[in-house]
């Protein structure tokens, strides 16, 4: 499935359906990374913080929180922890369902967990960036997630393997952090590849997660400054 010289979506899709013959266990195993990173964590760890921040800002409860002994840093870390906990819960759920279907995950458990952690951090950090800068009202949340997230998801291989896309889209996908999340998790979790083999995906993910956490923190600080004045 590696190289596709000419692209004809209809024929390729038919070929894929005809050619793939997976056991239920393998099918579950292979669906774990896109399911977990591409949908579960995306909607909870990205959409969740945006909705929380916007709701807090709309209700103006942030000011009351800041007037209490609660520190701004604690609030930031609290949201990180809360959505991190939800993400861990979803990770356990998705892996458990796969495990009940006898799916096997060779090795590299810690590496897979690290990738999941980085993915969650990247999503929550992005949530802070979007929630603090772009989403002004609750109604904006869905629109922003749809406008920014759905193209990224489609280009990540979460729904359709990107090998089916034309070269230009596959090239663009190299800059898509969700693509790297899925690739890194797939290779570590399903194929059991070691760190050296997934290094390009991993480092891209580290850089993106770092950027988003720092960006999220700065956006959050900026938002607090504005809220404190009101």
């Amino acid at each position: 499935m590696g190289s596709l010289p000419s692209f004809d979506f209809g024929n390729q899709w038919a070929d894929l359906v005809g050619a793939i013959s997976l056991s239920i266990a393998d099918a579950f195993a292979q669906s774990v990374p896109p399911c977990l990173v591409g949908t579960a964590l995306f909607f909870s760890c990205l959409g969740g913080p945006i909705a929380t921040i916007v709701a807090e800002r709309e209700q103006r409860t942030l000011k009351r929180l800041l007037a209490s002994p609660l520190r701004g840093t604690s609030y930031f870390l609290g949201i990180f922890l809360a959505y991190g906990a939800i993400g861990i819960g979803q990770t356990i759920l998705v892996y458990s369902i796969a495990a009940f279907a006898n799916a096997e995950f060779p090795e590299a458990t810690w590496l897979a967990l690290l990738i999941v952690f980085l993915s969650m951090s990247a999503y929550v950090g992005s949530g802070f960036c979007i929630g603090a800068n772009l989403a002004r009202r609750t109604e904006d949340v869905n629109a922003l997630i749809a406008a920014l997230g759905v193209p990224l998801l489609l280009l990540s291989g979460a729904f359709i393997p990107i090998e089916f896309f034309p070269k230009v889209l596959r090239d663009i996908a190299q800059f898509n952090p969700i693509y790297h999340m899925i690739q890194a998790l797939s290779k570590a979790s399903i194929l059991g590849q070691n760190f050296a083999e997934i290094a390009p995906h991993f480092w891209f993910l580290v850089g993106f997660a770092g950027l988003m956490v720092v960006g999220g923190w700065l956006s959050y600080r900026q938002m607090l400054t504005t809220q404190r004045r009101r």
Partner: protein
Amino acid sequence: MLKIENLCKSYGQRVVLQRLTLTISPGEVYGLLGANGAGKTTTINILCHLLRSDSGTVTIHNQPLSEETKSLIGLVSQENLLYGSLTCAENLDFFARLHGLSRLQRRERVQVCLDAVGLSDRARSPAESLSGGMQRRLSIAIALVHHPKLLILDEPTTGLDLEARIEIWRLIRQLQSQGMTILLTTHLLDEAERLCDRLGILKEGCLLVEGSLNQLRQCIQAQEIVIVQTSDEAGAIARAKSLGFLDRRYGDDLAFWLPEALELKEIISKFDGIALESIARQPVRLEHIYNEVLNFK
């Protein structure tokens, strides 16, 4: 209880507070008045440690302003800052937890505060289901839940109907009688007149005057004010000037300051020959002082 000395704050080139100095004694209700943008909310935000001042000192209950002094203050903001989906009791319990109250203390304080604001029967109602007046009372209860030493009420009756406003006034008086120190900001001068022991008027970040209502009356050299309606305003003003009465406008009303209290028939006789349509005497009220201080001082 609260001592503010030479407090200054600017946002870039815009000066918001200029050497603000004031003191509030324990158990006192102090009214901070001023137009929008005068610096009232900025002062409150500094007291609540939400903003940092550029210079000046603040001490609350003899402690310099810090993160720790947040626990000494209960803030009721201009809007009802409530979690709408939480019940009244849950809102109170949540904020009590933020202030580090134990489970036992929280249970007791939630009940006491709900009783104090008359919301015991709505303890299990979501905050969003309450009327505007009830939500404001719940906001006051939240501000009181951790036993603050200073209660800050930032325009507590803005947007409320008369009935709800009277209810909040009753609550403030009740807190006052229990010895609570209160800093109140309001645009409603009759509210300030009713509730405050002392008043300060802010303009462009400067405290222009402060004192009790009687002390502030010294700002106006009049024993009484008469409001007149006449088709010959120029004539009435000229006559007033010849009599040594100062003229002022309060909205559409033409008013004259009387340096001494006079009987109505005496006042009418002084305007003999001017076609007066109506004439009314008024005592010097806070609105007159406020108008004078902001526009002529």
